[in-house]
Structures are given as structure tokens and as C-alpha cells.
């Protein structure tokens, strides 16, 4: 077995050292009636690298890769070009096979990277402090809700109807067990987000208002107005962002008054990966809330010789110290995805991020204008970044499946996202990034013309 260095001679010599006469003696504490006498039946035996690679390649070929089709899916996971050097760096063994940096003297590489990452995220979000990452955007969203309850000591949560339905579902699921009360709705297919309706649901029992920006339909809610209304009632504004590239083009949530900003960082550096692993981003506008934050934090300090260095800090919030009194049970972050994000963001820099955002927006505008010309199609949004909603006058799920059969991955139907909501079923969410060509847009438009005719 190529991964196991012990030889039979080693095993004999080592067994002798342990005083055991056979390997079974080392498992003596396992009651005899449950000990397995040999390899579990009905499962294959070990296989060569070549055989395993062949098997996995066969499975991978049963999937249609995004690069092999005109591709327009978003809804919380975006396809962007990731520079080759990102993947090279995250495969360096010193990053790939390191553990959580609990021994900071021999983990400065990971720690300095996390400090840089935290700063990049905080700046992107317009916040004072970001943590070292969470599992993904949806779990970060729930953690933010739980944090708001701790800060305000209230338990009524107002969710925007235009929050990603999976995120809303995670919050609802967790709230069933923590007894937080959730007020939410489904979005109406209107060109502008319903800020008035959202604000009317905030009262003096509200711990937080959760708003997605850009929202699930691709619209851009004015956050300042919601922040003011929330703050008037003593509630916090949590803003969820699932497309960080957008923040290269639009105002940050922090500068519009968001108290906690969370999001999905996958779009930068991480790739699609069928939904995971992704990268939860978590930041607070005001550093006074730091001690209520979940997750790992990396901070600057000095070593015994006065040299600058970095450590994990404020761990008295965390489960390994506080156990049942911890701010969260989270024990890991999404370290390697944070590295990918940070490397990609360093390659982009401010200039590159803005250029990338501009290119995304330019192509999305071209796509919206082209699709608006397809008979039977109307574009819902007045404002958007790189994703918008079109209405096609019939069940979009069926149309998406039909177009996929023709080799076009047309977008995400609102019927898939909001099952059972008939009023939304003719909605199709179309995302356009720098990886989309104008030819792809033309292909989608023609294909839609064919199906809708």
C-alpha cells in the first residue's frame, strides 16, 4: 500500500516493543462480539493510482463543466477567471498541509496571510474588523443573526424577502432550535427592492434586519435608508453579500451603515466546486463588537526579541476555552479558501478589482439589453451589477432544462430557488461575468428565441 511506510519487519519489531503478541492484542479493549474479523464485505479492495484516477475521471466526465457551455448561473456562486498562480500557491505543501496556527512561531506564513486577508475583507466591506473566515456565506449569515441577538438581547429577526432562500432557510432552521422569531417573506417581482415593506416590519423587539446586497434578484437596495430605520429602533443591520466582485463597483455596506457584514467569498479565487468548500466572510463596522464575534481572529503582536509577528487572539470567545459559553461552536475556518481569496485579491489589487467589476457590469448590461429584445422576455431590474432577473412568461424551470439539453446553461430559475411560489415561476436569474463572451450572450438569446417562439 503506497501510503503506508511500515514494513512487516517494522511491524514485528514494534509489536515486540509494545509487549503485544499480535495486532489484535492492541484492540483488546474492543469487545469481541463487535470486532471485525477482516475487511468489511461487499467493498472493493485497494487500487492503484492509475485505476482510481480512471474511475474518478469517468465520473467527472458525466458532468457538464461550466467552461464547456455558454454559462449564466449565479445565485450565490459565480464563475470567474482564477489566475493560475492562485492554484499554484494554495498547493504549496507548507500551506496545504499545515494545521490551524496554534504554534505561532512555526506558523507565521498562515498567520500573516490571515492578517492580510482580514484587512482585505474589512476594507472591501467598509468595516473595521473581519475575522479569519467562516464555513460559507450561509452559515456566516446565521452566525451574524445569533451575534445580533447576543448584542441586542432581543430575539426577533426580520429577513428581507430578497435574501438568498438557502440562507433564509439556514436561519429558519437554526431559529427553530434557538427560539428566535423569524419574520420573512418571498420577494415580489418588482424592479425595485421593497424597502418600505421591510422597514415597516422593524419594531422595538427586532434584534436585526438581514438584507442581501445585491439581492437575490440582482437588485441594489439602498442600505442607508434601512440602516437608519433599524438604528432608530435599536436594531442592527446585517448585510449579506454573495458576489464580492460587486463591491469593486458599488458602495460598501459599511459606508452605508451596516453593523455586521457577512458574505460568500467564493467568487474570488475559490471556483465553483459544485457548492463547496466555499468561504464565509464576516466583518463588523465598529470594532466595539469584536468580542461578540464568532470564529478565529488573527492579531499583530511582537515576539521576545521585539520582532513583529502574528497570533490567533481573543480566543476566550471560542469553544476550546469557553466550552458551552462560547460565542459559537465553530472550530475551524476556511483557511485554504481564504488563502485563495487573498492571493487572487492581491493579484487584482484595487485597480484590478475595479477593472474586473467594470468588465462584469459592462457585459451584464449588454446581456440585459440583448435579452430584452427576445420576444416574450422582459428584464425586471432597473439597477443591477452582474446578475439580473428576466421574466419569460412560462415556467423557467422547464426552459432551463430544455436549454441545458441543447448545451446552454441559461441561469437559475426562481422556481428552483423558491419552490411552490407560482408567482415567481416565470423568473430566470441570469449572471454574466468576465468569463462570458458576447458570443455566449448571443447564443443564449437565440436559444431563448427558439424555445419561447
Amino acid at each position: 500500500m503506497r501510503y503506508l511506510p511500515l514494513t512487516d519487519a517494522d511491524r514485528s519489531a514494534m509489536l515486540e516493543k509494545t509487549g503485544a503478541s499480535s495486532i489484535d492484542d492492541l484492540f483488546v479493549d474492543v469487545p469481541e462480539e463487535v470486532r471485525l474479523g477482516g475487511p468489511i464485505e461487499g467493498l472493493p479492495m485497494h487500487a492503484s493510482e492509475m485505476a482510481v484516477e480512471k474511475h474518478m475521471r469517468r465520473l467527472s466526465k458525466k458532468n457538464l463543466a461550466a467552461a464547456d457551455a455558454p454559462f449564466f448561473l449565479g445565485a450565490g456562486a459565480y464563475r470567474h477567471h482564477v489566475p493560475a498562480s492562485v492554484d499554484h500557491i494554495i498547493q504549496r505543501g507548507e500551506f496545504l498541509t499545515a494545521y490551524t496556527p496554534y504554534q505561532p512561531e512555526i506558523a507565521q506564513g498562515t498567520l500573516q496571510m490571515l492578517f492580510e486577508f482580514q484587512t482585505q475583507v474589512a476594507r472591501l466591506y467598509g468595516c473595521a474588523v473581519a475575522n479569519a473566515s467562516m464555513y460559507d456565506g450561509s452559515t456566516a449569515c446565521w452566525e451574524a443573526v445569533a451575534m445580533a441577538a447576543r448584542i441586542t438581547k432581543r430575539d426577533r429577526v426580520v429577513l428581507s424577502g430578497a435574501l438568498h432562500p438557502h440562507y433564509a432557510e439556514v436561519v429558519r432552521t437554526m431559529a427553530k432550535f434557538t427560539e428566535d422569531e423569524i419574520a420573512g417573506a418571498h420577494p415580489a417581482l418588482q424592479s425595485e427592492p421593497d424597502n418600505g415593506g421591510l422597514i415597516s416590519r422593524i419594531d422595538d423587539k427586532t434584534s436585526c434586519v438581514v438584507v442581501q446586497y445585491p439581492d437575490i434578484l440582482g437588485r441594489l437596495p439602498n442600505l442607508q435608508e434601512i440602516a437608519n430605520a433599524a438604528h432608530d429602533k435599536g436594531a442592527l443591520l446585517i448585510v449579506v453579500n454573495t458576489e464580492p466582485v460587486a463591491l469593486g463597483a458599488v458602495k460598501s455596506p459599511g459606508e452605508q451603515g451596516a453593523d455586521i457584514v457577512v458574505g460568500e467569498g467564493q467568487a474570488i479565487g475559490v471556483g465553483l466546486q459544485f457548492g463547496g468548500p466555499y468561504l464565509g466572510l464576516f466583518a463588523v463596522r465598529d470594532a466595539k463588537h469584536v468580542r461578540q464575534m464568532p470564529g478565529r481572529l488573527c492579531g499583530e503582536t511582537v515576539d521576545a526579541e521585539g520582532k513583529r509577528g502574528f497570533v490567533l487572539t481573543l480566543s476566550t470567545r471560542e469553544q476550546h476555552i469557553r466550552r458551552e459559553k462560547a460565542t459559537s461552536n465553530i472550530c475551524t475556518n476556511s483557511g485554504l479558501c481564504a488563502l485563495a481569496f487573498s492571493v487572487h485579491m492581491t493579484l487584482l489589487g484595487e485597480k484590478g478589482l475595479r477593472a474586473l467589476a467594470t468588465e462584469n457590469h459592462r457585459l451584464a448590461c449588454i446581456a440585459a439589453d440583448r435579452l430584452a429584445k427576445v420576444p416574450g422576455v422582459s428584464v425586471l431590474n432597473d439597477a443591477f451589477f452582474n446578475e439580473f432577473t428576466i421574466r419569460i412568461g412560462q415556467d423557467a424551470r422547464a426552459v432551463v432544462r430544455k436549454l441545458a439539453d441543447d448545451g446552454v446553461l441559461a441561469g437559475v430559475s426562481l422556481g428552483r430557488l423558491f419552490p411552490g411560489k407560482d408567482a415567481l415561476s416565470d423568473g430566470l436569474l441570469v449572471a454574466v461575468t468576465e468569463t462570458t463572451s458576447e458570443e455566449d450572450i448571443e447564443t443564449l438569446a437565440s436559444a431563448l428565441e427558439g424555445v419561447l417562439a
Partner: protein
Amino acid sequence: MNAPNKSGWKPGTPVEGHNAVSGPDTVTGNRALMLEEPLIFEIGNTETTGVDFGFAARLDLAGVEQPAEPTPAEDVPSRLGTLARNEPIGLPGLTEPETVRHYTRLSRQNYAIDLGLFPLGSCTMKHNPRLNEKVARMPGFADVHPLQPVDTVRGALEVMNELAHWLIKLTGMHGVAMSPKAGAHGELCGILCIRAALEAKGDAREVILVPESAHGTNPATAAFAGYRVEDIPANSDGRVDLEALKARLGPDVAGVMITNPNTCGLFERDMKAISDAVHAAGGYVYCDGANFNAIVGRVRPGDLGVDAMHINLHKTFSTPHGGGGPGSGPVVLSEALSPFAPLPYTARTADGVVHLVEEEDADNFSEEHFGGKMRSFGRMTAFHGQMGMFTRALTYILSHGADGLRQVAEDAVLNANYVLRSLEDLLHAPFAHSGPCMHEALFGDKGFAEGLSTLDLAKALIDEGYHPMTMYFPLVVHGAMLVEPTETESKAALDQFIMALRSVAERAMAGDESMKGAPHYAPRRRLDETQAARKPLLAWEGELAPSGRAVRSEVGGR
């Protein structure tokens, strides 16, 4: 490093007649291959980028059909409304060569499995096979969107289902929830299944029992799920006190969370009796599967009466730890808990097709294929789980097969026992008397000279070229040192590690004060964690240098 063979040659030993001398300070702060590196904020600026934006460039050779000229940006009016960003962000950029160099230099300040034995107890720092990485990057897995029509992702669903099948078979359980993102997220999943099952019976309960030796995530998880946490006492063998546990069980106890093998490195002999007692009292048994590596292929948790157990794919099944995640924590479930598993899930029907069951069709699917029994407690995360970890874990599992996985457990346990018996004459091994250990060996600080601690030993071990073991955990042993060598270490590597550990232990017992200053040879000396917590500095707060005028830090990167 790989350990030397019998020749006894040591690469760092000076040839006789030469004295090793430490040199003078350097002007750069570097010491040859030990390279200092500033922050990106100190070397980058907002006008530099490592990405070119000629997106629609025409690369085709003459004679090949050319793509159309792109629509010029000025012909496309912005649709950002009133929210266009006009303030600077403050993000530094570097060109590609500068970026690669920055991160390569940083990487060299990390210890990693690829550099040497990483004996971190309870973390299972085994070799991460590179075939896993290659497979995870196949475009059919890496470049697939989670919401693509299912007919375009049949292979991905088959991977999930094939891995699920292996996990169920290896644990002897009934079902598995694949979506939890990490071990602690899996714990939460399991506890929520227990809560949902109890509530479905109209039997809401308040208490979860957790041993004192448990990972901190266990009580934190139970509390997060709304339960009150009470301790289960241990006996002098380092195992759960069965009689005390039985005495505490009652109608208010929802369940127990037990780690098996436990955090003292011991198999809970009474696990079946514990499960039977908990079940008789109407509760459920959660098993923390962090230490599954010790028993995979040797015993199935399902045969021990376990109702739910998370499996850390990043431990037992070799997906990389990545400097702190991403993890992956599927939860295997008993027949009693399986119906409550979160959405989405995959299921293979009689026709061989693997279905992805989401909110949309959950009720119908349950009616059609499970007699209406599936009553999911909800959703734990967007999308379907850590697909990138599923491909790696399945690759690892297929490489080993049923026979190889059994050998993994045997070698892991043998390696740990070899370490235990090679050190017990010197280091205090509190449970060495109670029989063989499983995959990790536990020691305490008894016998250390006044003023020297486990921390000092750990830092001295860094100077010897090792990552320290887990320290001060479990809490039940004073100055605990938990050593988990894993099965991917050779005997020679273990012998060298044992020699190093014996040496630092002897120094600790002899009162070698120089250990207090260790590490001496790492990229940093001991870091001031008190200052970091007292005055938290969690983001770089300076102004970026103007374009082309990068500055260097006065400290560290001098």
C-alpha cells in the same frame, strides 16, 4: 525530515575539528534561507495589478474565424443607479512575480506535514495524497455550479452517493447527512437530528451529558442547539464512569455526546452498555468521530449502538487541513435518526439513478420512496456540502479499499503504542496501566523541574524540528501532551521523534532553563499573546503608499 538510516549520519553535525558558530546580525533581517517578508500593504499599491484585462483579445491565427470586436465600454451606460462606488477601497496589488514570491516566502515560515512528523493529538495529521488534489481539480468536479440542472451533474451526484455508501458501510449505520461543513457543524447536525426526533415524539428534553474530557466543540454545540450541558465523570482508567452515567439518566436527558476512541486515546470498552442504558432511558447517543482513524475497518460504531457520528473527512480520510480548513463533516445516522437528516440529500433509486432531494421535491420523494418517513429538520448550509472534499475523500478511500483502511487503523494504533511504550519509562503516562492506547498516546508533566512546563517542552521540540503535540488537552490530565503519530510515519521517523522527545523531556526534568527561551531557531521567538489580546490589532491600519513608492516596514521586514 526523513529520519537517518542505521548509519547514524546527522546532516547538521559539524565535522570533527570544526566549531559551529552563530554569525553576526544581518542588515536585511534575513538569515540566508530564513527570509523576512513585509505585509502586502507595505509592498503593494493601488495602481499595480497582476491581472491583465484584455478580455476580448483576438488570439486566433489569420484564416481562422475571428470573434467580433467587443462593444466599447463607453457605449454601455452603467446600470448601478445611485450606488456606484466613488470612495477608494485601499486594496494593494502586486504583479504576478511579486505575488508568487510574497506567498512563497510566507509559506516557508510554516511547519507542515510535508516537512515532518506532525504529532498533533486528535487532529490526525496524516499524509495528504496528491492524487486527491489532481482529482478534485478535474473540470467535471471543480468547474461545476451547484444549481446546474441535475442532468448535467450526474457524475457529481454519483460521487456523493458513492462516498455516502462507503461511509455507511464503514460505520455500520443506516444513513448519512453529507452537507455539514466541518466536524463541529456535523456535531450540530447530529444534535439537531436528536432534538427533532425527540420533538417528533412530543418528548422535548433539556440536558445533554458530555464527559469532562470531551472536545470543547461538544458542550458548545449542545448549548448552541439550546440544551443545558452536564458533565459525565470519568473513572480512574480514563473512561466514562458507567454507573455514574446510569445514575444520571432520566426523562430530562436528551442524549450523551461521547468521543470514542476518547480523548485520552482509549477505547470506551463499555460503549455498548452506555448506548443500551441511554436508549432505555429514551435518549440518543452522539459519538464524536474525530478519532475514527483508530478503528476504521476494525469496529463499526453502528454495532456499538451509536445514533449519530460525524466523520472528519480532513482527519480519517486525508483531505488537507489547509492551515485551518476547509473541513468536511458528514454525519452517519441510525435508523431512528435518519428520517430527520437535513436537506438536501442524495438517494439512489432502484433504476440506478442518483437523485438530489431538495426542498422542492422532499415531500413527494419521501412519499414515493420512503413511505413518507423522511421529515428533515431543515437546511444547514447553502448548496450541497463540501464537494471538493468529497472527491478527495472518495479518491483516498478507493485507493485504500476495505483492506487498506483496516491496515490504516492497525498501523495508526501500532505507531501510537510504539510511542507510548518507548516513552513511558521517562514521561508520566497516566493511563498506560489500563492497557494499550488507540491512535494517540497521552502523557502528563509529572516530574518536570519546578518552573518548567509542557509549553516549554513544546517550544523546545520546535527547535528540534517538530511541530509540538496537542498541549493541555484533555483537561483531565495535568500538563497534558497528546501525541498522535498517524499511520503515514515510518518506524525510522518515529525513532527519531522519540529520541528528540526523550531529549527534551530529560531537559525538562533536569531543569534546563534554556527551554524557557525556546524556540531559539524558529522564524519567531515566543510571541506575546497577552499584548495581542489586550490591545487587539486585527487589521493593518496604515495608508497605502502612492503608486510606485512602496515602503518597507521598520519592524520585521527591515
